[in-house]
């Protein structure tokens, strides 16, 4: 008996100690340095674009050399960036400057976003590109990215693929030559996320349509653009290799080696072709869904300043962003090192890769459609849409059932 009582006493002591301990550490915020200093000597940057991690490190060194402020760059593997960021912010160990995808991500985090309307270059950001929440500019765009069909110019011509009929003909012709007409790949956005954006973007008011769909006021099954989308998807199932057996690397490799004529990708994949000696020219063209002749172009990520950081840190973060977008060194990095398409007036990129040039060209001609997918319910692509796509590609599901199933999961995900 006595033994048990001793054990209970010990246990409760530790529980109380533990409670006190955790209770004490929670409110401690990261490095608030007091009011005497207006700018912190060190800031932390955490961003999602894996491709520019090394360049960010180099940029941090130059920034320190020019201004004396140290920039610590945190790395990420990409996939779980948003979860890592949320965990860090929830524990008050958040970075000073971080990136998000503007849309439902930034909407969810809006309590953590500092008002950046006062930055000197905000007025020069191209129309509609800055992330504005509740009338305040909170996000500074990285660049624009566009997606559509990345194709082999020696195999297909955009003039011959204008609508559903010509698309199917192209797929059949390529299949006869043992070539994949259009290849998708198994990763969630490359499988269904990006391609499903197109029928949304073709609605009269895409963002309103997303809201109506969540409320159950409209159905994809009753919308002509989606009916056509399902037919395109069925054509891919009938005439191309199963996308579930193809990953991103293989998708790129197949296009580079002439096994695929086109892939559904964006200009971000241009760097992937550096590993190959291409004996043809790459081009980018719209997915000809319902006669669509526009690329889907928008801002993939934007910079934000953590509103929960100390005033000195916030100031340092804002100064860092201002420097990045106005100083010569900063601009050089954005254009030459990161390879971004300019979104702020006064910048020009002469060394764009071939796919980014196409995106810039379509943008200049105004032939772009938006990314309503940024307003889709959080997590819907991975958790709800991918399983439906998997079902479609592994069974004999009809296009009608496919749309009905998409409608069903959409309502479920929007709850």
């Amino acid at each position, binding site marked *: 008996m006595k033994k048990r009582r001793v054990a209970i006493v010990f246990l409760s002591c530790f529980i109380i*100690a*533990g409670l006190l301990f955790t209770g004490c550490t929670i409110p401690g915020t990261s490095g608030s340095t007091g009011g005497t200093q207006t700018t912190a000597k060190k800031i932390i940057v955490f961003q999602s674009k894996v491709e520019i991690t090394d360049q960010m490190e180099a940029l941090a060194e130059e920034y320190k050399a020019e201004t004396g402020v140290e920039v610590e760059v945190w790395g990420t593997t990409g996939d*779980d960036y948003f979860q890592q960021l949320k965990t860090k912010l*929830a524990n008050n160990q958040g970075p000073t400057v971080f990136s998000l995808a503007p849309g439902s991500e930034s909407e969810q985090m809006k309590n953590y976003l500092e008002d950046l309307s006062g930055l000197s270059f905000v007025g020069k950001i191209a129309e509609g590109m800055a992330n504005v929440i509740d009338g305040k500019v909170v996000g500074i765009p990285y660049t624009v990215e566009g997606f559509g069909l990345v194709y082999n110019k020696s195999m297909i011509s955009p003039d011959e693929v204008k609508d559903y009929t010509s698309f199917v003909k192209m797929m059949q012709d390529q299949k006869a030559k043992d070539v994949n007409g259009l290849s998708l790949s198994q990763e969630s956005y490359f499988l269904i996320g990006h391609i499903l954006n197109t029928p949304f973007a073709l609605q009269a008011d895409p963002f309103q349509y997303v809201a109506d769909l969540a409320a159950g006021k409209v159905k994809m099954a009753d919308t002509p653009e989606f009916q056509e989308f399902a037919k395109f998807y069925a054509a891919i199932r009938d005439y191309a290799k199963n996308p579930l057996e193809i990953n991103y690397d293989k998708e790129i490799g197949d296009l580079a080696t002439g096994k695929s004529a086109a892939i559904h990708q964006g200009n971000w994949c241009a760097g992937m072709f550096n590993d190959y000696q291409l004996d043809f020219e790459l081009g980018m063209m719209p997915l000809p869904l319902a006669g669509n002749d526009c690329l889907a172009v928008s801002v993939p990520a934007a910079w934000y300043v953590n509103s929960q950081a100390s005033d000195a840190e916030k100031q340092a973060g804002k100064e860092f962003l201002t420097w990045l977008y106005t100083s010569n060194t900063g601009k050089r990095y954005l254009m030459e090192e990161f390879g971004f398409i300019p979104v702020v007036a006064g910048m020009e990129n002469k060394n764009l890769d071939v796919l980014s040039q196409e995106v810039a060209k379509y943008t200049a001609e105004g032939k772009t459609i938006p990314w309503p997918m940024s307003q889709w319910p*959080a*997590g819907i692509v991975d958790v709800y849409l*991918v*399983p439906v796509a998997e*079902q479609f590609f*592994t069974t004999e599901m009809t296009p009608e059932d496919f749309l009905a199933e998409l409608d069903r999961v959409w309502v479920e995900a929007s709850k």
Partner: protein
Amino acid sequence: MFKKQDKGWYILFTAPLIFIFTTVVIIPFFIGIGYSFFSWDGLPLNPKVFVGMENYVKLFSDGRFLSSAIHTTLFTFLAILLINLLGLIFALVVTTKLKVRNAARAMLFMPYLIGGLILGYIWKFIFGDAFSSIGEQIGLTSVFFNWLLDSRFALYALVIVATWQMAGYIMIIYITGIQGIPEDVIEAAHVDGANLWVTLFRVKFPLMMPSFTISLFMTLSNCFKVFDVNFSLTGGGPNNATEMFAMNIYNEIFQLNNYGYGQAKAIVFFIVVAAVTLYQVSITKKREVVMV
């Protein structure tokens, strides 16, 4: 009863562990129970709405959660069977007078040292690319096709990988059990004329009962909680056919941002795992023979 001196040592060794266990397991566990009554997305600045038992009620009409329960049960059943059978056979083989028994032990244990995530990616390649090209080469496409694209075979693939990983570890537990059997008992059985089969079932197995208890407990709780192999091998697909309990909870919390609801699922998950494993331990404990 402790002597005073012993008590000091006792505290010295157990206190740090109790402290760590309390802070990282027990306290978060109770906080977690609290969260399960809220509707919340995990960010301190965003509103927590008290919803009472609603999360728990919702859970029992969540078709996806219930079907993940069925997958998990099926997976656990198959995996326990296969892991323990193979582990036991391996253990019996490597405790004979086999020349290569030490090398064999090392090799059989090796898969356990590879992390589940990496294992999943390796086998993903085997079941996907390797299987389809074998099928194309030798024509046996009814067996060699991409297993991960078939909802039934994807589950079998998971069972195979889990077995490959765990069997070696379970083998070690059975080896200790076998080595713990006194030589004289076996000898006595021989003298009494028991053949190999009878010795195995009537003498060795009853005396190894503690190993069975531990092995079954380990495999049961590990298979129920499987996540890493699930995540990297199938990702829950195709069409959610291999989405296990843990993965369903992970998706709910980290992909869909429903912290409160996900917590409620996790609590139910805990109760199920605890109940099943405790029941199993109580059954097998009864069958243990006490050696005097």
